[in-house]
């Protein structure tokens, strides 16, 4: 075990030395890998922000449950207790008087509301389910509509479906980009390692003749590829943060023009770790392919 650890430590140290030995080449490779990872990563962040925007947009993932005009207090209490039994559902009760007051605050509606002889609005519940998929929302809406003394359960399902379809399309595009640029990362690592194997040919030949196993020879290249991928992931994270920083101002201004506020969410530690891990795995894969092909000529 001690020897195994010692060999891995030596291979890691060697791969770090190789990275530092040619700083300009390393910088260019990291930039190429970073850019390759940035595009899908940025796409993912944009989609995540859009999903958040969709969630926070009023009425998008809410079901309005309107009671019959003649519903009594006990009917309302019955609906409230039924809603409390539903898992993952938040709700607020909007009494008809409160609804009328809100309507009166609206400049366009104030005059019309004032001319009404009595309050025509029903009591209502605003329901926000945790599962906001179009299918789940529709099923819940139908269930709510079937409850006693409920006049109508309203959901803008067409909007939700359109938005969901748009997000799915975006997700597919990001996945395709990730596949494409992931292959690019593998190709960059493949070529870097191929050149390294050529440069280290004398060492590899001697090492094999005096008892080095294939794993001993491959190990520093694997570490090199993985390390380069992880560092490329960090470069990509930096580029994504920089892009979000540049976009934050204009996005805030745009949101203000629509009378709201929106802050772009940056990737968290888990997302950055996942990006670096993806870079590391793809780098390792590129190194594995390259070293397997390159070492054949030593057989």
């Amino acid at each position: 075990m001690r020897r195994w650890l010692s060999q891995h430590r030596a291979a890691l140290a060697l791969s770090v030395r190789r990275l530092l030995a040619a700083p300009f080449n390393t910088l260019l490779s990291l930039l190429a890998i970073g850019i390759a990872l940035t595009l899908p990563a940025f796409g993912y962040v944009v989609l995540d922000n859009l999903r958040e925007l969709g969630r926070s947009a009023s009425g998008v993932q809410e079901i309005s449950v309107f009671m019959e005009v003649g519903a009594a207090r006990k009917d309302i209490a019955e609906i409230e207790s039924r809603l409390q039994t539903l898992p993952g559902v938040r709700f607020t009760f909007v009494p008809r008087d409160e609804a009328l007051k809100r309507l009166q605050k609206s400049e366009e509606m104030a005059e019309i509301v004032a001319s009404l002889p009595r309050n025509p609005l029903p009591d209502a519940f605003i329901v926000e389910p945790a599962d906001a998929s179009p299918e789940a929302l529709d099923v819940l809406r139908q269930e709510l509509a079937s409850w006693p003394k409920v006049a109508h359960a309203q959901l803008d399902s067409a909007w939700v479906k359109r938005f969901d379809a748009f997000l799915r399309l975006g997700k597919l595009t990001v996945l395709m980009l990730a596949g494409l640029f992931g292959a690019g990362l593998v190709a960059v690592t493949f070529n870097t390692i191929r050149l390294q194997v050529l440069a280290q040919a004398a060492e590899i030949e001697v090492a094999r003749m005096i008892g080095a196993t294939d794993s001993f020879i491959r190990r520093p290249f694997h570490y090199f590829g993985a390390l380069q991928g992880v560092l490329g992931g960090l470069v990509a994270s930096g580029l994504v943060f920089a892009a979000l920083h540049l976009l934050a101002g204009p996005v805030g201004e745009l949101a203000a023009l629509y009378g709201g506020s929106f802050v772009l969410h940056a990737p968290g530690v888990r997302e950055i770790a996942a990006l670096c891990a993806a870079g590391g795995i793809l780098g390792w894969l590129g190194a594995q392919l390259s070293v397997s092909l390159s070492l054949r000529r030593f057989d």
Partner: protein
Amino acid sequence: MIVANSLTKRYPGGFEALSGVSFRIGAGEMVLITGHSGAGKTTLVKLIASIERPTSGSLVVNGQNLSALRRSAIPYVRRHFGMIFQDQKLLFDRSALDNVMLPLQIVGLPHREAVRRAQAALDKVGLLAREKANPIALSGGEQQRLAIARAVVNRPTVLLADEPTANLDSASAQDIRTLFADFHRVGVTIVVATHDQSWIEHCQGNALRLDHGRVV
């Protein structure tokens, strides 16, 4: 102990470097393989070191039949040999100490212990003072001694050398011969391919003469 029986090596293209060679080398013996250029000396050394595989026949070293080895087992067998190549195969991008440490890194010896043993090997061949020097800065004799230090650092049971005194002046060649005699005295089995007449004449061990791939 090394036992060869009807050992034949044919290269792609049909050239037969060794034809039905049989011999027996006891543990702790020193044997010189002699013969003119192209006699098959280097091929025989490479077969014993498992760098080449025999076309037919058997070659048993320390009870292990090298002809029947799986590919994955070869590196582990090679570690039992100390190999000194005709062209030394030193690495010129690292120091003398790092060259000697390579076999120890291959077996996964912890760094500190590897340094200690590599320094001891360099001391044995008289190069400890040059441990930080790049091999390119060493003379031909020093380079050969460095190659010997790398070959013995792993304490091999068999030391194999291919023309270790070639291209050296007589004083350096004598130093190398003395080193081999020292290793022989402590019980290491030594097989040397050489056409160094001075060595052949003064050899206290056995000689195996090859001619056109056959023992004569």
